[in-house]
């Protein structure tokens, strides 16, 4: 459990960096500075908040760690909302979003972003769980060793 307490950050950081990536994209594409900042923070902050919530739920034992399904669900729910916040902010301030205006409606926007959010969730899990997975497997190996299933012990039994 000590390890779980340390990993409150990854969820938040992964989310925030994703937002920055979008900002970076806008920056190199030559968008105005204000647009870049709103695009980056508009996605980064909601995703960071969702990342933090994920870690808190994980710590509280509400989400089993390393499981694909809950994390994918987290991506499917969190990502479209974060993207919608971003698009609404951009449209509200600059009169133009990134893709919202090209979609046939908010619903189809949310569905498409949800599908991409599934990918976001899986990628998030892979980075996030690396830290925990290793320790979980080590614990399993240790247990196997105590039970005498280790190679050396096995060979000696021959």
């Amino acid at each position, binding site marked *: 459990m000590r390890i779980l307490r340390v990993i409150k950050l990854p969820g938040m950081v992964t989310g925030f960096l994703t937002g920055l990536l979008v900002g970076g994209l806008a920056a190199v594409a030559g968008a105005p500075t204000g647009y870049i900042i709103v695009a980056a923070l508009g996605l980064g902050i909601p995703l960071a908040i969702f990342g933090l919530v994920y870690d808190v739920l994980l710590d509280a034992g509400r989400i089993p760690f*390393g499981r694909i399904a809950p994390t994918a669900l987290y991506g499917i729910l969190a990502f479209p909302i974060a993207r919608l916040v971003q698009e609404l902010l951009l449209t509200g301030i600059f009169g133009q979003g990134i893709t919202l205006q090209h*979609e046939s409606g908010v619903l189809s926007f949310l569905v*498409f972003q949800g599908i*991409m959010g599934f990918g976001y969730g899986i990628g998030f899990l*892979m*980075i996030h769980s*690396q830290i925990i997975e290793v320790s979980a497997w080590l614990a399993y190996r240790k247990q196997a060793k105590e039970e005498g*299933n280790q*190679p050396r012990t096995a060979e000696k039994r021959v």
Partner: protein
Amino acid sequence: MDTSRGGAPGETTEQVKEERVWRAGREDPMPIRDLPEAPTSLHILGPGLLLAALGVGLGETYLWPRLVILFGPEIRWLFFIGVTLQGIVMLEMARYATATGESIFFGAARLWRPIMWLFFAIAILVYIWPGHVALGAQAFESLTGISWYIFAIAGLILIGIIISFSTIVYNVVEAILSTLIGILVIGSSIIAALVGNLGFVWATITGLFTFGYFPQEAISGPQAAALFPLIVGAIAFAGPSGMQQMWYTLWLRDKGAGMGTYIPRIKGLTHMDEEETMPSRGFMFDTEDPENMRRWKGWRRWVHFDAWVLFWGITMLTTIIYTVLAQSAVQIDPGVREAILADDQGATLDGMSGAFAQAGGAVIGGLFFVFISVIGWKMTFGIFDAFSRGQADMTYYFIRPLQRVGMNRLYFAFLWFLILFGIAMLFVTGEEDGPAAILDILSVLSTFAMGAYCLLLLGTNNLLLPKKIRPNIVINILLAFAALFYLGMLAYSYFRFGVII
């Protein structure tokens, strides 16, 4: 040597009265041990993730999007079949490895040693070329303008350093590959979220099920001889290509899956003094014992999760994302298709980047190059580790004098040979026969190896394993179909068009 097979494991041999063994094929019999308990929950990610991380590569991000641009998303059904067959193959590879703790190469030797040496030779022919890292570095050159030789050589040396300084090599390989694939999946999801729309996803998903669709121009017409082999090559690159599935058995062993628990793991150069004694063959569990069979079912559950959720799921997901990207590219600039048809392969990389750039601005075109660079490096990283494992495994067990050297040292000998040979090749190979040319040779032999290992699995899993844990008839039919699928396509391509690739 006694070559008899069959009978329940647990028969007493004459040589060692107290020890029960399972006689499988021509090599030493396997002692009977208890199968360890499978991890109770599925959440401990298995090497399936590693296989997905290695498998999601140029096929998914480059070859298949190119086919989608050329023929539309309907061509994807072939990808669907390819990846599903790979899922079945993966389950069967895992069956042998978790039941015995041996690699599939050892299984091949139990049938007949020359079969194993054939794979040894194919591995060398296919994998000593630094094709992947060169292609990745070439993409990086397009991005930065700095000569790709520098990136390729730095990338190769970095691989050597990382692996040499690991404690347990497998853990490091798993961590690095998983993290990199995580970054790729997140990055491509975001880009697709910014340029795609729902219609593309629908077209992609329906495209996966348009079974039987085959573009007429790839069968007859002036361009068929160029297009058909392109499709064959792409099928070979759907999911893990070439010998990656065979290496999966070595990763399972190092992960300690099933009877692999009894086999020591490969350690880094700096931890060689902790090397444990390597047993001379694998082990078998008592399939007549209900407790062991219960545990076996637990391992099969774990492996199924590995194969379908981690491997199949992640590969399909990446595919959908990249098909969406490819469709966006065509929608924005229909001229991209003609450009790809006219271009040679090296230029197609630029063409793809150009297509993505038109779809989502110069940055996304640039990011495509970044992704290809990352993929090129991580493929090389994964392949170098796996190749060295496989070759070390075969030489250690079957060239007896080399047993004194030890598995660990053999592994590092192969690894550093690959790195140094790769660097030497990069100096010898000019820009003229660029990296893409190497990649083509690779996909011919890859396809051959894939057909061959399906046949091998039919042999190992039906002849070497106790009856109770052999594959059922449906699996056997699917394996035979897979062999026909890969070898048949190669043969058709050769006899119909006179070219294999």
